[in-house]
């Protein structure tokens, strides 16, 4: 009986101590998909993206801009692939990779301007990990190639895995560069 009482007191004591410690940490989350390629209003979203290129002036802002776009286009690609929209999906994936490629260029520019990029580098590293995981899943879930044949037009051979591999390579390269820093 005494032993049970001791255990109870100790467990209450420990719970009081550890209840103050929080292990909660928000994982990097990709944006919720908005208008998708193929939608009539999607061009507005692309125009806004272009205007934002001007609005996000400064090296830190540019880094955030390219990261944001890369995230957005990756979500588009993932969703489009799920709906077997391979042509639009591959285009979105290509854009995502291109935007991610721009990130280290802006980080270097910011660092040369004397700006400490530690916080953003951590965020980008987390983003790179998420991108990599999603791209690897996409490689498993989608065919290697796909022949897209629209009505009244010539068919297009889509090398889906090549595009995904290119994305993984870019993300891995950026991640390695960031780790070196």
């Amino acid at each position: 009986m005494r032993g049970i009482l001791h255990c109870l007191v100790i467990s209450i004591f420990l719970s009081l101590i550890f209840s103050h410690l929080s292990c909660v940490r928000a994982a990097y989350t990709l944006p919720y998909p908005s208008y998708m390629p193929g939608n009539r209003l999607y061009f507005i979203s692309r125009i806004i993206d272009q205007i934002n290129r001007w609005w996000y002036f400064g090296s830190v802002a540019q880094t955030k801009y390219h990261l944001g776009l890369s995230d957005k286009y990756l979500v588009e690609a993932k969703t489009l692939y799920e709906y077997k929209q391979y042509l639009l999906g591959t285009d979105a994936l290509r854009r995502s990779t291109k935007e991610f490629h721009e990130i280290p260029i802006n980080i270097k520019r910011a660092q040369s301007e004397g700006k400490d990029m530690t916080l953003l580098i951590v965020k980008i590293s987390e983003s790179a990990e998420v991108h990599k995981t999603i791209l690897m899943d996409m490689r498993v879930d989608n065919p290697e190639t796909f022949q897209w044949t629209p009505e009244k037009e010539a068919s297009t051979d889509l090398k889906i895995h090549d595009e995904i591999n290119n994305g993984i390579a870019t993300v891995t390269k950026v991640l390695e560069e960031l780790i070196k820093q």
Partner: protein
Amino acid sequence: MMYLFLVLCLFIAITSYGFIDPNLILTSVPIVHRFISSLSNVVYQQRPVTAGIFFTVLLLLFFLFRHVFINQKRLFPKPVLFWKWIVIAVLILVFSYPMLSYDLFNYMTTAKVTYTYRENPYVVMPVEIPNDINLAFTRAANKVALYGPTWILMTWFPHALGAGNIWRTIIAFKLFTAIGYLSMCYLIWRITKNMKNVIFFSLNPLIIIETLVSGHNDIIMMVLACTGLLLWKKKKFWNRITGFFIFFLSVFTKGATLVLVPLLFFRQLTKERLMLISSCLLFLIFIMVAPIREELYPWYAIWFLSFAAFLPYPKYALFWQFCIALSLGLELRHVPYMAMGYYEGPGPILRTMMTVIPVAVWGIWYAIRIKNNKD
């Protein structure tokens, strides 16, 4: 009496450095550094004493305000005399430390993000450049720019004047708001030609403390709004265009004056009506914003006090009395934090009481006066 006013200004200017942020070192001169440290010790270690001193100084300022207002003709037979005193007071208070608010540091850091780092302040938060030294003493650094583009553009001047030196930048920003204060006083004089109106605004301790000591940018927004609306009332086309433009500069300074936009469509309103409605609308916004922001910031009173200062005195004496009682109540909101060192606990209820009591006392006094007059 005005000498006492200047002595109080000097006292505020010197003792304000006791409220210096522990992470901010303004000087390496040993004597000055030691003096500021000892002042800081009193402020942070003897909190109830500090609050008591602030309370006394505030009451003295309100007493002087009342005295000058009543004896204005005897004290200042010529308006020039009054202006001299005001300019001296401004010159003293410009060199005070912004002891009651961290907003000025937020202005400085946002300007630095814009002009030194050349980043868009509406996209990049100061905290995203963690090696910036200003972060050590800036609050709300985890937010993008809180003010409009007019303000961001205008901050280039004090930022450039500061030339990277923190103390110089503080003074440059305060000089900037002091220019706004003097412009507003001049505008009131130019329109009303009545010293009572100028005194109502310029010697109100809330205006003095929140503008000249804390350096809040609300005064800039209000100068632009008043000038814009008054020019808009003129008959000449170019005056109206200029007024319209200046008014929108005000809207894009802080946004509160957006509520006055409908007034642009009522050109038949008399100047007096325009000022009264503007003051009432801004008072409503001030009251409505409070529950959203969870705090009734004293410096928001600058919005409605500015327009109230244009109203003819004997006619709107009651409104002015209410404004003065509320000014005292709002300034007293600083006292609980000063005494306790934290905002929580009994802080919110104490701040509410501090605000309500002076207004309630004034209300009771007024009711008794009316009753006595009837008897």
